[in-house]
């Protein structure tokens, strides 16, 4: 199979992206986020953040069907592919939106690969507006898909899942757990007995993160022991592409914000964008961001239309995205000067989101090591 030349970016998807962007432009998520941060600023004495997201916005998103874009029609969803989901992820990144949607999209693509009754059931629950996330990391946060510290035995889970993204926003979790027969994938719910959520204190203001501690929690099987790793591997290109799209969207915001600032900030009687020491690094953000965006669209399209090439394309996209996250963040803060270093500036909000995303599902070096094995 080969990819369509237009990245599968048809009129429906263009309109989806445009409508979603318009919705978020009206919401201005950072302005809604700001009040929830009050009192949490001080790293030594500040209160712990509670994983804020705007629940009204989320309900509206559900009414508009965006939560179910990647749920198959058989499970009551819209049944679109990764090209569509990537379009949403890019806008989530561009608006730095705190939302359960990012992890729920990830969950959809993992569940779709599992092809089990349990997975289909959970997809149906997503279609009704329930949110899901992934609990697949051990304490080392290893980038490989076999690194869980949770054990599965006789239908129950024991141990800890680390670095669970947006855990405080979610209804259910897909947990990777080991057993004598290998790794399987299991469903637990946020409020069930034997599941304790221990929030992390994290740098990123737009997401939350937690440890999930299991003490004999009842777990529904989504994927039998021994089949969890192949399931995760099959979904990995989608997970990489979604996070890379988020980075690309956020980098585009960093680019435009920095260019805009360089047009208005005056020093030496001129806007600083006149000076090539400022102008050229901003152009370099654009060149790097455009490379990432093109590789992201290519990876999404490969996943939907040319699955044999999806891994290669996804490692390319996240490799590029991780470097873009780093470059765009470094330059945007530096070129804003003192103001960019302050809590008031939105530049810092994006910077923190980006250096979180940079390492999710593997940093650039790891992507390139995997890539080299594929070509």
């Amino acid at each position, binding site marked *: 199979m080969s990819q369509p*030349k237009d990245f599968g970016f048809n009129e429906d998807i263009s309109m989806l992206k445009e409508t979603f962007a318009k919705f978020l432009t009206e919401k201005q998520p950072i302005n809604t986020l700001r009040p929830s941060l009050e009192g949490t600023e001080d790293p030594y004495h500040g209160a712990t953040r509670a994983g804020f997201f705007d629940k009204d916005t989320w309900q509206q998103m559900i009414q508009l069907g965006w939560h179910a874009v990647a749920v198959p029609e058989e499970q009551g969803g819209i049944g679109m592919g990764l090209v569509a989901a990537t379009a949403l992820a890019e806008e989530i990144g561009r608006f730095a939106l705190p939302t359960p949607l990012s992890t729920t999209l990830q969950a959809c693509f993992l569940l779709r690969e599992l092809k089990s009754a349990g997975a289909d059931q959970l997809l149906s629950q997503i279609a009704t507006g329930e949110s899901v996330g992934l609990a697949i990391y051990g304490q080392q946060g290893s980038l490989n898909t076999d690194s869980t510290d949770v054990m599965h035995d006789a239908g129950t889970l024991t141990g800890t899942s680390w670095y669970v993204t947006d855990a405080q926003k979610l209804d259910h979790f897909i947990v990777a757990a080991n057993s004598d027969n290998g790794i399987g994938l299991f469903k637990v719910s946020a409020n069930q007995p034997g599941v304790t959520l221990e929030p992390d204190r994290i740098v990123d203001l737009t997401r939350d993160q937690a440890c999930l501690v299991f003490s004999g929690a009842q777990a529904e099987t989504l994927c039998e022991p021994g089949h969890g790793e192949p399931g995760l591997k099959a979904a990995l290109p989608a997970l990489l592409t979604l996070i890379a799209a988020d980075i690309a969207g956020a980098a585009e915001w960093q680019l435009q914000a920095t260019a805009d600032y360089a047009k208005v900030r005056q020093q030496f009687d001129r806007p600083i964008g006149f000076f090539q020491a400022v102008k050229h690094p901003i152009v370099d953000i654009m060149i790097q961001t455009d490379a990432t965006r093109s590789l992201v669209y*290519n990876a999404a399209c490969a996943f939907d239309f040319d699955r044999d090439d999806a891994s290669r394309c996804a490692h390319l996209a996240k490799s590029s995205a991780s470097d873009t996250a780093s470059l765009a963040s470094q330059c945007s803060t530096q070129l804003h000067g003192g103001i960019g270093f302050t809590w008031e500036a939105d530049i810092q909000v994006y910077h923190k989101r980006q250096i979180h995303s940079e390492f999710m599902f593997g940093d650039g070096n790891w992507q390139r090591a995997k890539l080299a094995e594929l070509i």
Partner: protein
Amino acid sequence: MSETRLNNEQQEFQEFCRRWLGENRPGPTKTPLPQAAYEVVDEEHRIYLSEWQAKCYQAGLIATDLPKEYGGHGHTGLQQIASAEVHRAKVPYFINWIGLGMTVPTLLAHGTEDQKKTFLPPIFTAEHIWCQGFSEPGAGSDLASLQTSAEKQGDHWVINGSKVWTSLGHFAQWMLLLARDDKHNKYGGITYFLAPMADPGITVKPIHKMTGESGFNEVFLDQVKIGDHLRVDEIGAGWKVAMSTLTSERGAGVGVGAVAGESPRLVMQQVINLAKDTIRNGKSVWDDPIWRDRLMKMYERTEAAIQNARRTKVKAINGGAMRIPLQSKVSGSEISQELHHLALGVLGLSSSLYTRDTHAADDGKWALGYMNTYTGTISGGSSEIQRNILGERVLGMPKTK
């Protein structure tokens, strides 16, 4: 080319191109061709390459979509297919790359009917080789500071001055010439001419590059007479016309026939193979994780360039018509340079061996190629100038000048 798939006519034409290029691939030259069309100096190569270009034109691979009255073949939507197939077939490059890539789009946009009818057909057949007379010793990045003068005397102009870095000047019959008609108006005092290189007032003197090759020249213009019918567009409109020539030169214009050559993807694959074949300290360079990471970073950039070109044509996600095209020159030339430098690193000390050294890998082509990549990052508006243009035209930052 259509966004998604080829129509019947395009498909048939694509099959024709593939068959024709397969059957008509020219044989080898007596001495190897230089790496790129801008380095051709041997008469043997000029004849060989001109004949090849004429043959491709007659087959319909050049000027495919241009109107018949200008020597074109009168098709629609077929040029990109021809260009892609020429590229894919890895046949020799077209010698008249300045004529095809710059004169044709410039005259189509700004030329008179007479100029188009007279000058376009011999460009396609390579009967008239073209060179570009823009840069001067004192006018490089600040091109509009050029001093070569044009003085109107009755129905003709008298030109005095000198040009530099003139590729193909030693073969050319015609030059795209910028000259100053008004000393007191920097941008509005430049006029654009078509200059006959046969004029007795023109002297061409080769310049040797850091590679040791020649291929570009100094050109001295002493009392050169040019008829007013050879002026392009209005008096004083030269800067505007030059900008449209440069847009074509930088890869953002409409092509009339690709300059064949090795694609970055192919060169990247060669460098990866080189790393796999080069053994140092008991293992291949490819097996060193640091080298592997560097190679994959480069691979990522070459793939991104391909996907960028693809995205240019998808309106919903291209970020505006000019955003990616204006990046193609700076990105392409920097990728090529770093890629060649990477190849030198893979070879290590062996990269010191140059052409005709019996031990040199690939007959020294990596060192030669590396040095020649500076043509890309400096000529046609240096990378620094490209970044100014991108910052100003795409991101709206204040003009540096």
